[in-house]
């Protein structure tokens, strides 16, 4: 339980931070918000890297599959978000 409480604390505080910022995102940008949040949830790539490198054949295989999926999220998510937010222009 030593590690659990600090982690739970971080989790709860991050949820509140999330609610605070994300309620301020206008409907105009809700689609980029979704693709962008997918990109950052590709942070599981870290876990995948550790699993690929860990001992054991099964860990390597599962980790490799996770690494491919998470990298699609990271690269695809940031790129497609970049494409989208670049389209929102103001003409004067």
């Amino acid at each position, binding site marked *: 339980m030593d590690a*659990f409480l600090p982690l739970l604390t*971080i*989790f709860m505080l*991050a949820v509140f*931070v*999330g*609610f605070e*910022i994300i309620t301020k995102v*206008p*409907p*105009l*940008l809700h*689609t*980029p*918000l*979704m*693709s*962008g*949040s*997918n*990109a*950052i949830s*590709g*942070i*599981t*790539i*870290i*876990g*995948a*890297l*550790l*699993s*690929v*490198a*860990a*001992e054991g054949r099964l*860990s390597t295989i*599962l980790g*490799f*599959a996770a690494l*491919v*999926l*998470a*990298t*699609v*999220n*990271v*690269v*695809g*998510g*940031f*790129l*497609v*978000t*970049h494409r989208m*937010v670049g*389209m*929102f*222009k103001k*003409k004067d």
Partner: protein
Amino acid sequence: MSAVFIDLTYLLASILFIFGIKGLTHPRTAVRGNLLGAAGMSLAVAATLADREVLGAGALSLGHIAAGVGLGAAVGATLALRIQMTAMPQMVALLNAFGGGASALIAGAVLSTGGDPTAQTAVATVASGIIGSVTFFGSLVAFDKLQGLLLPDRPVHFPAQQAINVLLGVGALALGALVVGDPGDLTNYARLVAVGSVLGVLLTIPIGGADMPVAIALLNSYSGLAAASTGFVLDNNILIITGSLVGASGLILTRIMCKAMNRSLMNVLLGAIGPDVVGAAAGADDVYAGRIKSAAPEEVAMLFDGARRVVVVPGYGMAVAQAQHQVRDLANLLESRGTEVEFAIHPVAGRMPGHMNVLLAEADVDYDKLREMDDVNPSFAQTDVSLVIGANDIVNPDARTDPSSPIAGMPILDVDKSGTVVVVKRSLSPGFAGVPNPLFAADNTLMLFADGKQAVLDLIAAVKES
């Protein structure tokens, strides 16, 4: 690299993610925000690669890593650069799926390395496995429905649907208890993932087209929660922080979408509107008989001629017809003739949150002209012509006036209050809710029966001639 240094880098990356999302609160700062997020991700990946466990794992492991990253990056970049803006809901559905899948796989990988997992790790592994597999297969079903591959766009119901789902849920939890009891036995984890996968499919199958925005937002939230629980598996702060940010984001969007349809989340998930279709369709004749006025493009062009203010209301039909560029041309043409043109965007127009905004932004429409529902509704009384393109339920006045309607209480765009309403639509077929729309029969409404793109092209030609 020392563990402290890695953790500090993770902290920095988390801060960059938060600033990155903050950037998305305004179109002016959105590009920078996204780049900050990408910078944070690069830092986090670099720090992990420098970790002794990864760097010291040998050439073979590093080869696997290079191959996995290369493959994922190639697929991700191809998808991101090739995807059409109209297909963005499919893209986000896929990304949701991959996020959930990655989490379930990592939890399995950690379990497979043996050792003696703490209670926290074991419980978090179970959570990652269930949420991850539900998200993966649920999102794939959503993708399939949006893309129109195997499953129909409409809700699919089968006998004892809810009972089966409850049984599967209980089964997954029971298997979870077995995993916690004996973490060394991987077969139970595999079974748990299998049950979660079936559950994901069955939970998404009843969800029909116009309810997709809710489903996608909810699955987005799940993919974040799966990442957060994987953070508990790995005792890793940055996964927990990022996962909870994404979980919160998806939850907020889900709530906004439900509110915009005046429906509870439960009601959407169970596909409750679907069965009403047959009963309601019978009423169409009473509503429409003898009252529909169909107009030619030339007549509409004459209306535009005298109009000071025109509001365009796009719906999913505009996306299907790929008509956003033509709509932009029409708007520019009218503006060049001195007419004020704005776009009224309903929160659930399209198949995902913000879908219409992205399409119109792609077509180079100034984002200041894209007006939110609450903001634009009071202005319809001063609007000479409202042009509804491929939208139906979101402009149905029954939502306001008929308490017995299945869409009663859903906030709508008050186009019926404008001088004239022009509805571009192929036929009088009902929208997703399956109910007739009295707007089409209203005294101030003209129907322009045609394909969305062709109708707008005809309107442009007619306006130029007049």
